[in-house]
């Protein structure tokens, strides 16, 4: 069993609790042991790095240091924002000028740790082929839109995963469930991020565009791997509809929830009922319609 330190971050404690639950279930199904970092603390998020980069590095770095003390070489964070902070801590530790103050604050170095997103972990440690073999409830006949958001593969020199401008890892995993996955041009466009709080007209425009494109491509759901993207696209979908005078009704499940479904797990366990826009449409079994669809198309 592969041992991976698990840094879930604050979102997964609250609004994105279903992301946490489904992540644990899917990892367990593939024999990945998630070791939750004991006494983990906030990664510092936007306030820390805009106030003091060293503070930000130290806050995130403390979690890496604890993980290293636990004997883990890999840390996975499902939240791309947290992941960026963790990678920032590693970068600081490798910087000859900042190494000493960093180590003084954190108490040890964090050399040799690998930090990955849930997507990277599933793509590299499990892979589409193994996933395809494990599928119990194929999503054949469903059209899923892969949405990566801005941070999952960027900045390229930090993320070091997939193509920064045209990533395909999520596409490949979703295809393995049997679903149809169109080429989504807005897969790395901005959702509006934290402007959801201060200027939700921004989110109305930016997330609105994403929903609009997803609908045009015949998508039934937008699959995400970031709690903030999920909030903007799902929780704020009503606001967006108001802003645009539109009537989007697109469920926005997490990658772990969709894979969990395909593996045959119960929607309840995966927390699908926690989504604002009901994802019930994904529960329709269309495997029998295949022939009918084929002749119709």
């Amino acid at each position: 069993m592969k041992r991976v330190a698990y840094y879930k971050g604050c979102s997964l404690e609250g609004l994105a609790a279903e992301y946490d639950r489904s992540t644990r279930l899917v990892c367990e199904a593939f024999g990945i042991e998630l070791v939750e970092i004991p006494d983990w603390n906030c990664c510092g998020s936007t306030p820390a790095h805009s106030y003091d980069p060293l503070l930000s590095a130290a806050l995130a770095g403390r979690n890496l240091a604890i993980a290293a003390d636990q004997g883990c070489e890999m840390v996975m964070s499902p939240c791309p924002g947290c992941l960026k902070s963790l990678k920032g801590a590693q970068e600081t530790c490798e910087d000859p000028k900042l190494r000493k103050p960093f180590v003084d604050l954190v108490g040890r170095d964090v050399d040799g740790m690998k930090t990955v997103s849930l997507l990277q972990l599933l793509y590299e440690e499990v892979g589409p082929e193994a996933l395809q073999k494990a599928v119990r409830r194929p999503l054949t006949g469903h059209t899923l839109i892969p949405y990566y958001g801005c941070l999952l593969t960027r900045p390229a020199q930090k993320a070091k995963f997939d193509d920064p401008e045209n990533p395909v890892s999520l596409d490949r995993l979703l295809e393995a469930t049997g679903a149809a996955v169109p080429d989504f041009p807005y897969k790395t466009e901005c959702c509006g991020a934290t402007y959801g709080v201060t200027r939700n007209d921004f989110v109305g425009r930016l997330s609105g565009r994403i929903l609009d494109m997803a609908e045009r491509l015949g998508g039934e759901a937008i699959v995400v791997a970031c709690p903030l993207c999920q909030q903007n696209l799902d929780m704020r979908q009503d606001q967006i509809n108001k802003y645009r005078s539109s009537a989007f009704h697109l469920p926005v499940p997490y990658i772990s929830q969709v894979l969990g479904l395909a593996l045959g797990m119960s929607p309840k366990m995966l927390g699908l009922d926690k989504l604002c826009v009901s994802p019930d449409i994904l529960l329709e079994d269309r495997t029998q319609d295949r022939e009918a669809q084929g002749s119709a198309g």
Partner: protein
Amino acid sequence: MRIGVFVCNCGTNIAGTVDTKKVAAEALGFADVVYATNYMYTCSEPGQQEIQRAIAEQGLQGVVVAACSPRMHEPTFRRAVEKAGLNRYMFEMANIREHVSWIGNDREANTSKAIDLVRMAVAKLRFNAPLFSSKMPVNKRLLVIGGGVAGIQAALDCADGGMDVVMVERQQYIGGKMAKLDKTFPTIDCSSCILGPKMVDVAQKENITLYAASEIESISGYIGNFTVEIRKKTTFVNWEACTGCGACMEKCPSKKAADYFNEGLGAARAINIPFPQAIPKKAMIDAAYCRQLNGKKCGVCAKICPVKAIDFEMKDEIVTEKVGAIIVATGYDLFDHAVYGEYGGGRYPDVISGLQYERILSASGPFGGHIRRPSDGKEPKEIVFISCVGSRDASVGRPYCSGICCMYIAKQAILTRDHLPESNSYVFYMDIRSPGKNYDEFVRRAQEEYGVQYIRGRVGKIYRRGERMVVQGADTLLGVQVEVEADLVVLATGVESSLGAGELAEKLRISYDQYGFYMESHPKLRPVETNTAGVYLAGACQGPKDIPSSVAQGSAAASKVQSLFAHDTIETNPQVALVNERNCIACGKCIQVCPFGAIQWKELRGGIKKAEVLASVCQGCGVCNATCPPKAIQLQHATDNQILAEVNELCA
């Protein structure tokens, strides 16, 4: 030995951070130094006269100049001391500019380092001995590597001068990238009409030997006497017999071969003559697509060929040519835009490269000169051009400007309007770079007379919407985001070094930069020479260039060769290895390590074997010197004694 030391101020280049007076004063205290002074510009005429006067008045037997890099002015000063009656090798140079004054501001440390360097040079000079060169005949034949417009120009210039020229071209045809172009900027004259006659000249000149579909296998020798092995790649067609009638192409059943000439837009036959004006007009079989060569029953071309030229058993052949000079004109390749995920990474058939669009515009291209888009053959109405794709972008490792794209986009936009008057063209650009005779006026014409919409800003994304492509970018002059729905997107793909440029450079023993472009000997004053004597550069192999510059360089390189060939002999370099036979133990190690095969056995009376250096082949690398156990083999002008004298001074 009576030694004179001359410390150069180089204006303020050296004197600004080095106390040259003090260096000269210190030098007076070194062994054998009888005269030392500093001077404003030692390389100037009065500066050289000052050295010559001192040699005469002080009876100097050796001279040290502490100044710039010997790469530039060592020949200058060697000539100066020679004129004053000294042997040119009784001269040493200490580099106190590039190695001292330009790299540090600490005057005291610089002065001290300059003194050390002068002390080393003096110590070495004390062991110098006069060396004499001999004369070698010059083989007045020229090798031109690359048959693009630069190589063609160089070959024709030299052939016109009565010299024998050997031209080697990797492709099946000559003409290079220019042969693929439709029209040329800024005059919109037809590329094949101006290049075609030159290509024909190459074929018809009796003193030009053309090896197409051939590559350089190896190069040995030195200026005046190179030996070149050329690999004639198998074409499966006997070119002596082939008349270029094209009957084989018509009947070839393998119709989906890669069409390299049309940049992959069309499909070629497995046996192919790439375009009607090809020189040489000979057919060649693409082994990857030939049915017969892939074990299927076919052989149609062999049956149809009226002169029985097809030979499926043909193998590569190596021919040897002897030449006295080499012009390298290997050109460039186009940046592959697949790394730009945001532009589709090569997934969209209607997002094409600049050269592909050139083929679409060309009357001999895949669509006969009618502008159609590759995906469905429809006439495009809205066309977007994007500049700087693979240029001026450090994130893809191409920080340099390709120099030609701004101009070729303007040309293509003008031609588009000529072909399709109802169409609209948009150009996303970073800056417009159009320095050149009539260049900026040309771009203006595109904007003002042809109504091409120039939008200053980068494109962030291209994606498909229905049958069209959406180009999403910024207009940085208006500060807004813009979206253009286009039928066709042309990427102004930049210039990169020719495939395999590095390997060829190693065969030629010339240097190249981090992008694979060949290094000229001096960026301003020796633009077509390399640091390997007898090897010259022309065209885009040295850096991105347009046609006028490439042609100018082709002629420049040709004139360099003609001045070399104006002499019947050249002086050899006496800085070569020499065997002291009394110390040689005949172990043969030097023969094994010599990279140039310049050392051989020599038999003395009584059958005693000794190593012997062929002075004309030796390149003076010194590997044998370092290897020889009893130190019997010594590289002249860099002997063990000379180098140890320098080291001793440094460590003293």
